[in-house]
């Protein structure tokens, strides 16, 4: 399936990656090439086949509901690009 420039721009916005206008056309070509190659999957009749999300044949284990970790605010903030008063700092979101 061929992707056009507008579609690439739309998925770039969904993925929150700024893509320069000059990259849109080459990317559309490249991604179309990959998607066309992927589309050979259509040859296979998969009617009634269960989709597999994981090979791990297990039910999620239960554990006791108690605190086993915490009180490590400074550790969590230690890699923050910007912080203040024990919080992560980001550009203003609400006017």
């Amino acid at each position, binding site marked *: 399936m061929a*992707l056009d420039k507008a*579609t*690439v721009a739309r*998925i*770039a*916005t*969904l*993925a*929150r*990656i*700024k*893509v320069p206008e000059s990259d849109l056309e080459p*990317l559309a070509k*490249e*991604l179309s*090439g*990959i*998607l066309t*190659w*992927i*589309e*050979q*999957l*259509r040859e*296979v009749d*998969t009617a009634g*086949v*269960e*989709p*597999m*999300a*994981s*090979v*791990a044949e*297990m039910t*999620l*284990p239960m*554990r006791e509901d108690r605190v086993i970790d915490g009180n*490590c605010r400074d*550790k*969590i903030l*230690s*890699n*923050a*690009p*910007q912080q203040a008063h024990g919080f*992560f700092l*980001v*550009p*203003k*979101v609400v006017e």
Partner: protein
Amino acid sequence: MTALTDLTIVEARDGLRSKEFSAGELTEAHIAAVERARPLNLYLKETPERARDMAAGADARLARGEGRSLEGVPLAIKDLFCTEGVETTAASRILEGFKPPYESTVTANLWAAGAVMLGKTNLDEFAMGSSTTTSGFGPSENPWRRRGDNRPLVPGGSSGGSSAAVAARAAMGATGTDTGGSIRQPAGFSGIVGLKPTYGRCSRWGIVAFASSLDQAGPMTRTVRDAAIMLGAMAGHDPKDSTSAPLAVPDYEAALTGELKGLKVGIPREYRVDGMAAEIEQLWQQGVAWVKAAGASPVEISLPMTKYALPAYYIIAPAEASSNLARYDGVRFGLRVPGESLDEMYEATRAAGFGTEVRRRILIGTYVLSAGYYDAYYLKAQQLRTLIARDFSNAFKSCDFILAPTAPSAAFAIGEKADDPVAMYLNDVFTVPVNLAGLPGISVPAGLSSDGLPLGLQVIGRAFDEAMVLRAGDVIERAAGFTHKPAFIAGGAG
């Protein structure tokens, strides 16, 4: 006397126990080799001081007769494993400067077994690649060269810094991770052993996530026996990873019996792909003869969905990656590029921080998961995954292990295949199906190509039967007698 850097893990273990040399001496020899290997760009971060501290601790334990399974053994760690207080980047600019405040379970297990950390090795950015050329910090070079040709070759990928370091004697062993072949293919390209365990055998906790339903950590070493020892230390149930299997870890070294009497080896008909070099087909036939000589009887098997594994993988892996990599937003760690609004900051940070292959895969993943396309792509790929896994379970009704090539070619030059993503993806045609089915697989160096590059053979086993995979791998290793060395050796002479 053999150079200390040339010893296998088994030989080092024996030498340390009999006090022929100390862990400090072994570590110093490796620190010097790591420095000499710098022109190949194998390590993103060297940790000589930590290595010396750990070696001193190992010597104290050895003196008390309390040496553990990897006591004093210097290892390289793929820079995808979080190491407490030591920069961990996944070879991405977006994580530059990130110092994890915690240790991954697999590396913690290795240190608890006495291993010594030499540093963090280069990889394809976020493990997305088959050549280690997509690293945000420059490509790694393979220590091997084609005969009569000095062009630098790729070490394979994504665990290419690890495989090249082990091949060049700049580490006794290394950790790798394998999502679609990232341990086995670089092991094949670098002439070493690489084992991808069953999904769930090693904890994924603290490993930077790429595609969570496929990622698995494993050992990269110069011999099968070393891989058995290293896997024994890495593996085990971890309550912090809900997909980690609550199973006991067998004694893998004990599995290496040197024979395959009464066992059946499956030869998959569909692995004879177009464009595969004749010498790889020949080596494969040679491999069949070797396992036959050890007592196994060959049976032809069919894995009819093989050709659909790669396209299914290139839906599933990018889809999982696009959601896993959503966390890199410039807020809590790593790179931040300022913007007027929060959204602008996200977009600018992710544009600057991700390289082109990672961007390509995030966009593909976002597209196949987006409204209107989910069923046509993602659901379809998951159904194919069911069929691929079913192929293997049918095959294992008539055989005990499968023998196949590791990759359809030997190592290629840096820059080759760079402009055609699909050609690059085809490298993983024999390894990807194994990840989709979650099975264990090993690559063992088995011969040289006509231009003098290593070629690997792959053994695939039933789920959680790493013992079988190692046993057959050991037989191939003994029969092949692969003693060739790369053109560049970082370790000292004898």
